[in-house]
């Protein structure tokens, strides 16, 4: 699997060098979003790909992270870094609870439980006016400085998102090569057999969901600070959860580089369409999402192993001596 690391080094290296060469704010914005959505797809992939716990409620953790930092910042003037940690704590707790409680559920039942979970949070965030400002959402004030995550330039954001992306990538690689990773693979492929062999399948799945939740929460906090606004109907939406899953599925479920490849593809598509149809809000979003839905149907049908999986299979076929 060295090929994956080589790809990752090229990808992240290019991202690290980009701000030195590119000064165009539009392109840097695209790069930041590619890294961010890629990391969030990783978060989904840890649960959905490596542990086989397919969720359509991951926006719940993203939203918890976004709200934790935004609320602490606007109400008590707390640094978003502390907000980030609080968000991670909340999401890990919620992930443990969700993972533990819905542990026996498989297939569609688990998916339905995760959707319901994110919907409950959406209702609380949009109806609890006194605390969350309800459906109006929360504007995140711009306060310059590293401690308050306010930058007049895009460059620091590139490196912050890059750090997150590299960390997320390493988490996945750990899940591929460590003992823990093999145990997870065993649970994913055949849970009953794994359990019979003494693999603590229950705890592994719970742990994977919790780690995945923590990662999604970090992404949510950073996204809210970068964009500067938290809208409950966006951050807790099912569409957002699908987006995380989609990037991972297109890129290759259960592969370390896949989520980033998927993110490059869909973020570029989105940015391109935004530039082309810019201005006409509904038209742009609609066309983008039609393509996105159609792409999802086509990919799961014809290339279920995704870009990374498909490429790897082709390379292996071409050179049979390559170790898989």
């Amino acid at each position, binding site marked *: 699997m060295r090929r994956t690391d080589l790809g990752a080094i090229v990808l992240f290296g290019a991202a690290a060098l980009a701000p030195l060469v590119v000064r165009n704010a539009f392109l840097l914005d695209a790069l930041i979003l590619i890294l961010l959505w890629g990391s969030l797809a990783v978060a989904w992939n840890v649960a959905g790909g490596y542990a086989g716990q397919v969720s359509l409620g991951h926006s719940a953790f993203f939203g918890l992270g976004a709200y934790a930092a935004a609320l602490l910042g606007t109400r008590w003037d707390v640094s978003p870094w502390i907000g980030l940690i609080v968000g991670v704590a909340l999401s890990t707790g919620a992930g443990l609870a969700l993972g533990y409680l819905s542990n026996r559920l498989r297939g*569609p039942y688990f998916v339905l439980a995760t959707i319901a979970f994110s*919907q409950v949070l959406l209702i609380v965030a949009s109806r609890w006016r006194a605390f969350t400002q309800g459906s109006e959402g929360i504007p995140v004030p711009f306060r310059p400085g590293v401690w308050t995550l306010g930058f007049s330039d895009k460059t620091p954001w590139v490196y912050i998102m890059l750090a997150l992306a590299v960390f997320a990538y390493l988490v996945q690689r750990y899940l591929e090569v460590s003992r823990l990773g093999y145990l997870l693979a065993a649970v994913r492929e055949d849970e009953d057999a794994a359990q019979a062999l003494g693999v603590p399948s229950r705890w592994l799945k719970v742990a994977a969901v919790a780690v995945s939740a923590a990662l999604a929460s970090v992404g949510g906090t950073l996204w809210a600070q970068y964009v500067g606004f938290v809208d409950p109907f966006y951050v807790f939406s099912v569409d957002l959860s699908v987006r995380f899953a989609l990037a991972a599925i297109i890129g290759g479920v259960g592969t370390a580089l896949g989520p980033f490849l998927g993110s490059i593809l869909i973020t570029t598509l989105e940015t391109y369409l935004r530039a082309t149809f810019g201005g006409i809000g*509904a038209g742009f*979003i*609609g066309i983008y*999402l039609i393509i996105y*839905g159609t792409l999802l*149907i086509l990919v799961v*049908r014809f290339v279920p192993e995704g870009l990374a999986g498909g490429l790897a299979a082709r390379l292996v076929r071409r050179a049979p001596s390559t170790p898989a």
Partner: protein
Amino acid sequence: MLLAGVYALVAVGLTLIFGVMRVVNFAQGEFLMLGMYAAFWAFTLWAFDPYVTLVGAIPLFFLVGLLTYALVMRGVIRASHNVQIFTTVGLSIALQNVALVLWTGDFRFVRPWYYSMVLHFGTTAFNVSQVVAFVVALALTAALFAFMRWSYTGRVMRATAQDREAASLMGIDTDRVYALTWAIGIACAGAAGVLVAPIYPVYPTAGLQFVLLAYVVVVLGGLGDMAGALLGSLIVAGVEVGGSYVIGTAWKEVLYFMLFIAILLVRPAGLFGQRGAERLGM
């Protein structure tokens, strides 16, 4: 409480598709939304009353169902759960946004002449459209029950639901059964959409509120269990009314999602479903 009929119709379609095909259709709400638009356009362009539209809408959505089955579902019917889930999710996103691009996100209303008419039963007053929606939805649900129970085709469908392999060995063309099941399920959603058009605003994500409820109903009654879905919709409608009375309309949704999660945790197979179904992901 009268909405129980509509919930039942949506939920029965959903549970039928799940029961026979083992697919959770995440796009069910979008077909309901398309039904609402069908009623809206027929009313606006040709001044067709929604109940006239209903007669044409059922075969129309049946055809739409056959078409989407052939184009989208046939290829994934034997694939894993995850592939099926994401296929219907993709279908849902695509349909929602086709509506958004074609008809914008504006709220639209169907206002037939009887729209503000009220019927009195004792001391309570009911909107006419709600009463009609309730009665017609229950009648359609009952017709579907009868079809499944007594017709030859219904028996074939139930046989396929019980054991796909055995049915196939008995000479049942399972592909045709699936196409039929899917089309009937979609027709239920389309009919429900036409029925609620005079009551609710029509917009591209209008289906979501009904389908989320339908999931609650279906899980409550046991995924795949049609009688369970009917009883489940009564319970959910009751909880909804009771909830808005006790804790206010703003929070009633929390109540039924809590109910939903509680059922998933305590008895995921539903009130009438087979125990252990959730473990197999059946």
